């Protein structure tokens, strides 16, 4: 399990929007129609390839209920990416997005990449939120946007990978200070200092600390 980087993700959103199912589809490639309510927080991981680099995604799946909100908040810090999920068949989950976003922005590092996900787009007949509305919200708040279905696996892979690409891009631009693990990025073990095209800051970091 060697990897160049590890990115930490957090999945947030109202209860029942399909956060755990998205994670399960992404890590195990399966769908569980009745998924137990998440208690507190769960965890999953998968390796992906971004520009020929192996990147480990460490994903924290949080409980959506209000009762667990304070525990959920403790996981924002140290996340490089967040998947903010709503359910296209339940308008109220879309209406709560601002609260979630405020919470996320307040408790995370400013560089955290956030992707807005309208889940359950297989249930077309029960749709209450149009894709355009999701897109508009995302544009207004500077988020990536995608509609997915954890059931049919549509766009699930892309959602996780696009987020990773965005984070990777930010690393190459030198936006992320990867020497600080609180940003949710960790250097992998097998990376060789010569074979990279990292920004000067990352390079010097690497040389200073050696491989961890």
């Amino acid at each position, binding site marked *: 399990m060697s990897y160049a980087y590890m990115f930490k993700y957090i999945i947030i959103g109202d209860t029942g929007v399909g956060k755990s199912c998205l994670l399960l589809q992404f890590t195990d490639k399966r769908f569980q129609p*009745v998924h*137990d309510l998440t*208690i507190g*927080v769960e965890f999953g991981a998968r390796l992906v390839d971004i520009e020929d680099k192996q990147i480990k995604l460490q994903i924290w799946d949080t409980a959506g209920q209000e009762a667990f909100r304070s525990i959920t908040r403790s996981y924002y810090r*140290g996340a490089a990416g967040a998947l903010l999920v709503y359910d296209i068949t339940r308008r109220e989950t879309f209406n709560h997005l601002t609260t979630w976003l405020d919470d996320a922005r307040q408790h995370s590092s400013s560089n955290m990449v956030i992707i807005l996900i309208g889940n359950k787009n297989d249930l077309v007949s029960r749709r209450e939120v149009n894709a355009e509305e999701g897109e508009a919200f995302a544009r207004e708040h500077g988020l990536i946007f995608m509609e997915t279905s954890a059931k049919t696996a549509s766009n699930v892979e892309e959602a996780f990978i696009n987020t990773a690409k965005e984070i990777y891009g930010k690393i190459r631009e030198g936006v992320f200070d990867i020497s600080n693990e609180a940003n949710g990025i960790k250097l992998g073990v097998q990376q060789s200092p010569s074979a990279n095209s990292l920004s000067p800051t990352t390079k010097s970091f690497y040389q200073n600390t050696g491989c961890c």
Partner: protein
Amino acid sequence: MAEEVNDKSWIAELESALKEDANLEDGETDTFISEELRAEIWKSCLGVHTKSTYFDEIFDLPEQRLLRQDCQQVVAKLGNDEEDKLSVLSDLESLLTYHRKSVNVPYTSGNGWIDILLPLIALKLPRSESYLLFEAIVTKYIPRAPSFYHLFRLILLYHDPALCSFLDTKRITPEQYSTTWFTSLFAAPCQLPVTTLMWDLYFQQADPFFLLFLGLVMVINSRENILNLKDLSKESIISALAALPSALQESDVQDFCSLAQFYSSRTPGSFRQDLERCLFDDEVCPESTAAIMQALCLPVNISELVDNIFMPQELSGEGVRFFLVDCRPADQYNAGHMPTAFHLDCNLMLQAGDVYKMAVQGLLSAQKQALDAGSTAGGEHLVFMGCGDLEQDQYTHMVVASFLRDSSHYVSILNGGYQALHQYFGDTVASMLTDHNSEACLVCLQNVSSDSAMSADASNVQSPSKDIFGKIGAVVKSKSVEVKEKLMEYIVNPGASDMERHVKPSDKKGKRYRNTGPVFSISDDQDPQDVGWNAEEEEDSQFELVSFSSWRSRNDIIATYECKELKINGDTYESELMISETHVYVLRHTNSRDKAKVVVRKPLSAIAKITCKKKYPQIITFKYGSAQGDNLVINDMDRFYIPKATEATKVISRQILNIFRKKSDDENENDESPM
């Protein structure tokens, strides 16, 4: 108060005497309180003293119509004759109106008032007495705040996590099915005779939280039925749940209450102190309310944990016994932890899932072993401890969540974590915690600016109780499976150089022996208790009995010296020290002339250090152990009075050097001559 209690017991005694009589007569009565005495006993239990109340009989509430309608409906369903019905109806409306005015809380349908009043009216007491009883029940036993339902969920989660998860997943909250149970003290869903019997027991129990456990038994008893409803809609499940108490029969009440008592005795009680005042008094406690409403699992307070661990003998065999799991990072754990704490490295869960699973297996088997051994560290009830800081406890919460997900029973979390524990012990922290090192303990470091006195000398720390790790380690290793050994390494020694945990705390501060130094040294007088002196009671049977003469004539014995074993308890034994090329033996004389007990049989390579006392050069101490990296781990020692001490130690040192040379170990090439 005392008078009241006496009163109560007097009546109860009288009652039981009467009951015996009754039993003699018809032999099958299982009423707990006879009809004639019920009113008196309830009044006594509820602390109601007769005083007359003036009912003004003015019915001018804004919701008067609703109230009257509800009363009429309820009374119409009663089986009484018409005349009775009228008087019940007038009592009901009069009492409710009066209550509504005195508490100034609007009446709403199904708020439990009517249900509580009916069994009281059935006692046919004067109106004012009925009212006083009603008032006492509402004040003492009906929970005021919604946090009660969160607490109920946590208790269900504690005893039946799978069932709790099922209901959670169905998005069914306790409010939805148990509100009528709790706001009416079970009078609403139960039939009148059942309610009456249950109240007999309830008022004598006098525990406001008993309601929780009655509710718990209600749900857990029907768990199979509930789980079978999985394909039904949320609404049907809720109504099925809400109706559960209606199936209760008079003959079930006794068992039902005993079961509730059983669960109550197996539930940590910290929530009682935290919530009693806000649930059954009109105090507002926003902090404890928030803590319960946002809790991941049932919280346990420091005081409950500490009492439980340090005074287990005072707890009855039936009560809660804790198994403390310390989830902090290894370095923090090593800088101070509860003597009985089991360390589970939460980082493993993220970094090495397989190893984490093994660690959990190890934890469970250690728990089982500790339980079987009756150790103070053993308990069925898992208490997870974090740092006490939400952000630092990310992993702790995740581990707790994973235990809950795996449907582990009896999972709780320590309120405030290590920080609160540290604070609780205050100045005595160094003596209460094991391995406490004020230079590494995070809480001490934080406090250091404000309180420099905290840097107490950790070298004086003595373990308050036997180190559990030794036991667990021995237990697991005795299975001598490599995998398990590796596992223990992970669980007990999450860091690479943490082996010093096995040393008694004092060792760390004393002169640390380095592998490169001489084996033999003359040190200043040391306290004889400084190392893990084998203070255990010796069992005679543990020693092999051999013949002195045959050992003396063994070819491999290089030298033999007379000596006296000096035991920590002051005992001395006449013995002989024998040295072979590879081992050191001590043979103790017995009553029989030629028989000897082999009390020491150690490979020379196990001798880590030999010291003698400056003032008494004949007193020689052998310390056994092994090098772990740069550190020396002493795990045993023996002390002897050897008349020819100088000669004996020379021989031993020479032999040890020979062994090292034979090994041609690079590390030891540079060893200087030990004397």
